[in-house]
């Protein structure tokens, strides 16, 4: 996993916006970057109390191995599943053409 980000720059925000396919204007970047920097900085305060020997916590509860049995439970109907979709075609979610490739 990546190291904690010490701060967040305007370039970081522009990069994330591009990954998220959000078209931010220069003005918006100028506005948002410092705000996000403040948020990240506030959260970073945690590292002041956690020493290097304290591993980062990913899960607050000491649980392991929570499994369910391999049993089929009822699904939604296609109508239910598609009810929130802005556009539907051939019983599928219709989405704008995305540049790029499947993963």
């Amino acid at each position, binding site marked *: *996993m*990546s190291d904690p980000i010490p701060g967040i720059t305007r370039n970081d925000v522009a*990069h994330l916006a*591009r*990954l*998220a*396919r959000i078209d931010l204007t220069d003005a918006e970047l100028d506005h948002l970057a410092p705000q996000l920097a403040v948020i990240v900085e506030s959260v970073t305060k945690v590292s002041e109390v956690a020493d290097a020997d304290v591993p980062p916590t*990913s*899960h607050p*509860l000491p*649980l*392991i*191995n*929570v*499994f*369910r*049995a*391999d*049993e*089929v*439970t*009822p*699904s*939604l*109907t*296609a109508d239910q*599943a*598609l009810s929130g979709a802005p556009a539907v*075609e*051939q*019983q*599928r*979610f*219709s*989405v*704008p*053409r*995305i540049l*790029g*490739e*499947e*993963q």
Partner: protein
Amino acid sequence: MLTPLPTYEDALARFEPVIGLEVHVELGTASKMFCGCATKFGAEPNTQVCPTCLGLPGSLPVLNGAAVESAIRIGLALGCSIADWCRFARKNYFYPDMPKNFQTSQYDEPIAFDGSVDVAVPSAESGGELVRVGIERAHMEEDTGKSLHVGGATGRIHGASHSLVDYNRAGIPLIEIVTTPVIGAGARAPEVARAYVGQLRELLLALGVSDVRMEQGSLRCDANVSIRPRSSAVLGTRTETKNVNSLRSIERAVRHEIRRQAGVLLAGGTVVQETRHWHEDTGVTTSGRVKSDAEDYRYFPEPDLVPVAPEREWVDRLRGTLPEPPHVRRGRLQQEWGCSENEMRDIVGAGALGLVELTVAAGASPQAARKWWLTELARRAKEDGLGLAELPVTPAQVAGVQALVDVGRVNDTLARQILDGVLAGEGEPEEVVAARGLEVVSDDAALGDAVDRAITANPDVVDKIRAGKVAAAGALIGAVMKEMRGQADAGRVRELVLARLS
């Protein structure tokens, strides 16, 4: 490309190929990885989906225990160490095949790692050699939805106006198995790639964890290929070829990619790190997505799923459920069947080992079982573009047909017609025999009449036989068989012919 590709031999003379394979296996669990939706292939679009696999707000994933068991068994069968403790991670990306905007996967903590398999690579001269392929890791993740690109000419994304997504596949348990780079295979790299995936497929089948149907996408292979000058110790830039949907395609795609990259380097160019798409029809790869900063998945531990920490007792118990290792099984069957090394290689090479084994278990002799699967059925499979295991005939049915031959109720010609019927969905062998009236005529009176007619119709042949040319009897036997429409025992007809003319 304007410059012609160098031949494979020329490419190999200058460069050494290095390959790596990533295989994705859809597990055959009844329900999905993190929710209870069914995993049935071919269901109506968006009918096997729920709030969890649709990524709706407020839903929470719960891990399918059977999928974890399968993952551990796969890891053990590949000689891997099993992690004492591991987590899932979110692979963040924005593409509509995952409605959550991330795929739940494993990143730096795979459940299985550091294994190897000894791959039997067939060879015309030496009877094959074993090549050790290292397994870097096998990790758990979920499959993505299926996109249908509309408006483009070829169904591909280029030129499409929009895409239609079906999430039935999203969330189906997937195991990704990654090899370490295979170095030193030289000209045989494409064959090693094919043999590895073939053997992996057989292993997964024996484990019973997946139906491993490449044509349905339950086993998918991405082939990483790079080449480096023979004098160089540094690995070249690699490409990742996707969309390779058969064992034969794997070999062809790797071979093509070696030639293509050699062509690029010989023309003074550089190989670009990218994904490439294999085209089965034209036998070439074309450029897909170029690796770039857009590929920044920002993995982080999945907070909604607790860590998996398999206890040793559990892992040991699962180790006890592993099937016989492939090479041990092969040796045992060879001895039981009394086959030669070449015969065994043919059986294994045709992907018929399990089928022949089941056919023998259903009562056929090893020779007969091998004959049916490797000749008649292999031909049918080839004609229909199917794998042997995909033919709509079971080993028990093949054994049933052979049993009819063994008791003399049908001959080989009729047996093939019965198989026709079984393959056409007309039912069990006995039902086909009854419906098509395919039994041999053993009624000597009916046969005798046919023999008499053949003798009358062929006086010249009769003269030859009487003059001592017994071989000429073949013409009369042929005439009788024709009249009986093949439904006679040729040996019995011969006896009758010779008895009448002696």
